[in-house]
């Protein structure tokens, strides 16, 4: 059957399609456009509202602002960034997220190298245990962890929350990096080892540079997840304003509600900007990392 295919140019470009086929695509366009609209409209509403003065937000829907232009303002952002805590909470988020991400990548990469490229007893057992823990809901660890942290005086400290995120992040890190490391050709290390390189040199000088895309995608995942985390921050950083990351600060604004939509929407936009920039900048790696992790599974 397929032998006939050779030499026949299958028309691929749309211009060559008959009108009948183009008409049949109408439902396709309808579904795709409707879904796109449903996904974009909420963001549009958020961003537009964050630039509107409070009186306008209360009086009319955000879409009506297009008909009455000129009432946009930057006051909401000035208000949000100027108020006590919000600017600090942005920096707090960075102070939680950046070290936690570096920790997760370092510990996961070392473990993935050991579990994938080296042979030893219990290797499979450890690997399967780590992957099994991937789906454990973190809620089940909260009570004893909180008790231990209280006893060690770690609650409310950055060190404590770095350790928590490290623990929650490592199973996923090992899982994601495992497939990238497994794809490395063995000859790559063997040549170096013949030349007298130690295992740690092979890992630091060869494996890490070669697997940089996978490490970057893990870093993006961890950055976005820890930046967006609320539950862990609420529990292990406690309610103190000085250490509250941005998710806690925004959720506090939501709870008070006295501030009204214009401040809330501006705060939500502020909280989303950093992960979006990171995400957009490293999106290529992110998708490649996802690919490595899932096409096998």
């Amino acid at each position: 059957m397929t032998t006939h295919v050779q030499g026949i140019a299958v028309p691929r470009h749309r211009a060559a399609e008959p009108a009948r086929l183009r008409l049949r695509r109408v439902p396709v366009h309808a579904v795709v456009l409707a879904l796109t609209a449903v996904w974009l409209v909420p963001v549009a509403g958020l961003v537009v509202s964050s630039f509107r003065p409070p009186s306008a937000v209360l009086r009319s829907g955000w879409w009506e602002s297009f008909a009455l232009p000129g009432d946009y303002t930057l006051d909401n952002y000035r208000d949000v960034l100027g108020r006590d805590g919000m600017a600090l909470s942005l920096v707090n988020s960075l102070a939680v997220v950046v070290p936690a991400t570096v920790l997760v990548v370092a510990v996961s990469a070392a473990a993935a190298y050991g579990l994938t490229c080296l042979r030893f007893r219990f290797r499979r057992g450890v690997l399967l245990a780590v992957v099994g823990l991937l789906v454990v809901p973190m809620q089940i660890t909260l009570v004893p962890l909180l008790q231990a942290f209280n006893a060690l005086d770690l609650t409310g400290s950055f060190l404590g929350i770095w350790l928590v995120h490290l623990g929650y992040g490592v199973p996923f890190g090992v899982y994601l990096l495992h497939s990238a490391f497994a794809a490395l050709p063995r000859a790559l290390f063997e040549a170096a080892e013949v030349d007298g390189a130690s295992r740690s040199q092979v890992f630091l000088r060869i494996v890490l540079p070669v697997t940089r895309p996978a490490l970057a995608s893990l870093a993006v995942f961890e950055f976005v997840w820890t930046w967006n985390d609320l539950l862990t921050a609420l529990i292990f950083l406690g309610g103190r304003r000085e250490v509250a990351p941005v998710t806690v600060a925004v959720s506090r604004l939501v709870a008070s509600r006295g501030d009204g939509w214009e401040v809330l929407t501006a705060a939500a936009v502020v909280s989303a900007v950093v992960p979006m920039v990171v995400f957009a900048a490293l999106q290529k790696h992110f998708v490649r990392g996802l690919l490595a992790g899932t096409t096998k599974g």
Partner: protein
Amino acid sequence: MIAERIGLLLGAVAVVLGATYAYLRGGDRLLAALPRRWHRALLPWLFVAPAVGVVALTLAIPAASTIGLSFLDADGREWVGLDNYAGTLSDPVTLTALRNTVLWVVLLPSTAVLVGLTVAVLAERVRYAPVVRAALFLPIAVSAVAAGVVWSFMYDYQPAGAAQTGTLNAVLTVFPGLDPVAWLISGSTGNLALIAATLWTQAGFAMVVFDAALRAVPAELHEAARLDGASEWGTFRYVTLPFLVPTVVVVATTMTIVALKAFDLVYVMTNGNHGTDVLSTVMYRALFTGRDGGIAAAVATVLMLAVVPIMVLNVRQFRRSVGEA
């Protein structure tokens, strides 16, 4: 204060990187001084031990002791047997939360698979595919807290007759005879509204995974099916879909975990009021409002039991993929 935080951040990163390097190089050198057999046996653990230690201390041991705590009283001192379970499972709030969590586990994975797969398949057929993919992808970077604000805004409700500032009710009241709906406050729609908002944040992930899987389907199979006269739907149903079954499992598993863990969005949007509690919010309240570690541990254990089948499935799937590699 801000300068101090930035100093802390940079210092911590420097310490982590320096310590990692020193640990690996120093450990390697130390182990090299041992007899050769010992050296070979211990070296892999140099790399694996930190991860195993951290995971044991923050996940495995706490999870095990939570199960233990669930049989103790509020302060974790006295043995109370199954009292915590009996107490929490006869509490109408927990029962509502249990029912809602089941609803989440059924609806979120199925709708995420549906939307993700639909977009991944259909976007290939339109020229503006990059816009579509970006639109679905965008909310991945939005925190549940910010998504909560976005969707509270979408679901905003004003009594009939008043100007509707919430997007959904504005659309609804365009049609004559339809009244605005108090999406989050009326018990019947609250859960669906929360699940829909979560779907909004998660569908992009499902789309990317399906997109990757679709690229892995051999193109010759499609061509052959078309030449045999299969319709577009037939090609999808009998050629593409069988290839996607493992991916459906991956996406459904991930979304089931998201559904079980659901907390942030509920906490921000309704705080569990109006019959929208899930197990996580019940547990959070038991821990911080009720100050009852025993009840909180019992709720967490119930949640854990729900995950066990997924864990087994996941490990099996992983074992198979490692076996093939």
